[in-house]
């Protein structure tokens, strides 16, 4: 019985410890973001890595999500003769919820994990110590370009995801379900407000921050060689995905 309480207690301590490390790194990253030297080349390299290199995965995910959403809602709405609302549901769902969350999760799997693995490997091979010995602050050199890239590039990926998701829905509704294309297009925009777009983009920037910072923090605190790097990579993906899903609720509550 004592062992169970001990285990629960240790889990709580670990959660609080990890939360503390995350917020500590968050504060340090913003503190170092505005200090010289600014490594423009590294910032750009990370933007390409987070943004440009993630385009194929975002294209596929968003397009098929929009298509399947149209298909599902069409089947359901036909039962109550409300097929004309399919377009609005697809566009609202993509802009407000699906595009930011799915892009966030997909980029976490692709980029967050590789950041944790890269920084974790640097940690266990003393490259982080070498950075410090070369009078370079690791948070400034490693965290800042990655986090900046996440905050800037995720909204662009989400805009792309929004367009493709809505277009995917249009393709299914018009080509497969024989909906009138003009009516579908009208219904797509009819119930949209500017806030739907903005709130999705704000979410995207927040998710960009979460997934990159979590990847960096997990990598930076790696211990124990190759096994530790593997653990850090898995933890980065699991933690960032959970934080994205939890924060999604609170952000939605605040933003709408």
């Amino acid at each position: 019985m004592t062992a169970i309480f001990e285990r629960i207690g240790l889990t709580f301590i670990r959660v609080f410890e990890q939360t503390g490390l995350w917020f500590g790194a968050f504060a340090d990253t913003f503190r170092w973001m505005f200090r010289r030297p600014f490594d423009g080349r590294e910032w750009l390299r990370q933007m390409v890595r987070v943004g440009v290199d993630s385009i194929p995965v975002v294209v596929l995910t968003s397009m098929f999500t929009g298509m399947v959403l149209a298909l599902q809602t069409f089947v359901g709405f036909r039962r109550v003769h409300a097929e004309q609302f399919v377009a609005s549901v697809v566009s609202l769902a993509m802009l407000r919820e699906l595009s930011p969350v799915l892009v966030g999760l997909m980029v976490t799997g692709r980029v967050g994990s590789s950041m944790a693995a890269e920084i974790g490997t640097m940690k266990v091979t003393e490259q982080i110590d070498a950075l410090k010995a070369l009078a370079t602050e690791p948070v400034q050199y490693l965290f800042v370009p990655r986090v900046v890239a996440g905050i800037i590039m995720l909204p662009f990926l989400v805009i792309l995801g929004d367009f493709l998701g809505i277009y995917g829905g249009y393709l299914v509704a018009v080509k497969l379900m024989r909906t009138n294309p003009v009516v579908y297009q009208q219904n797509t925009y009819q119930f949209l407000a500017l806030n739907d777009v903005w709130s999705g983009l704000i979410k995207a920037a927040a998710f960009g921050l979460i997934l990159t910072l979590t990847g960096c923090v997990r990598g930076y605190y790696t211990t124990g060689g190759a096994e530790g790097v593997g653990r850090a990579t898995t933890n980065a993906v699991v933690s960032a995905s959970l934080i994205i899903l939890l924060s999604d609720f609170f952000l939605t509550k605040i933003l709408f």
Partner: protein
Amino acid sequence: MAFIELRSLHKSFDSKQVLRDMSIDIDRGETVVIVGGSGTGKSVTLKHIIGLLKPDRGQVIVDDQDVTAMREMELNRFRRRFGMAFQEGALFDSMNVYENIAFPLRRHTKMKENEIRARVEECLEDVHLHGVEKKRPSELSGGMRRRVGFARAISLKPEILLFDEPTTGLDPVISDIIAELICEMDTKLGTTTVMITHDMKVAFKVADRVAMLYDGHIIEEGTPEDFQKSTNAIVQQFIEGRAEGPLTDID
């Protein structure tokens, strides 16, 4: 007053006490080699000198400045006076050899690219390497990686050089070449050098003074000649590399 002073350092990791009342003085321009078995705290000592670790108790004084009391910004400025060569080189594997050596120059100087190129070539010349600028660290042998690590360490023309086990895992011939190279760099650059190793041949070749770390503190120090004549049984066992003796009896 000594140039580098480690005053009564204590350091523990979890429940394991690594350094206990560890003190040593190092004069300007001197080459001190700290020897000791695996896990005795040699690397920990070296990392204290450059401020990568903070002691639980005690002080590290370098050129009359207390390293242990420095804040991160101050420490970063201070570290530009150091060059540190790591055990496996610790080269940045996302960069090639040229970019590795140019890294500190790009970050801490206002040198133009042609000046950087000239300095990188000079550093590679100092470690007797040619034509490797475009190679990735993974394409280099162990000995070459260490030499590139040395070149990176000296690129900012440091006053103090720290070597963390520079010959571990290398064959005896390459170890000797590395030792020669360290002597050469020492003479040419006139730096204060601290090296840690458990390779006694290299230690005697390089050192002005050898110190032995055991049980968290220095138990013997002196010139290579005096050190070899030490009457301390632990020191003698370590020098001779014998399996039987006080070192292994305690284990």
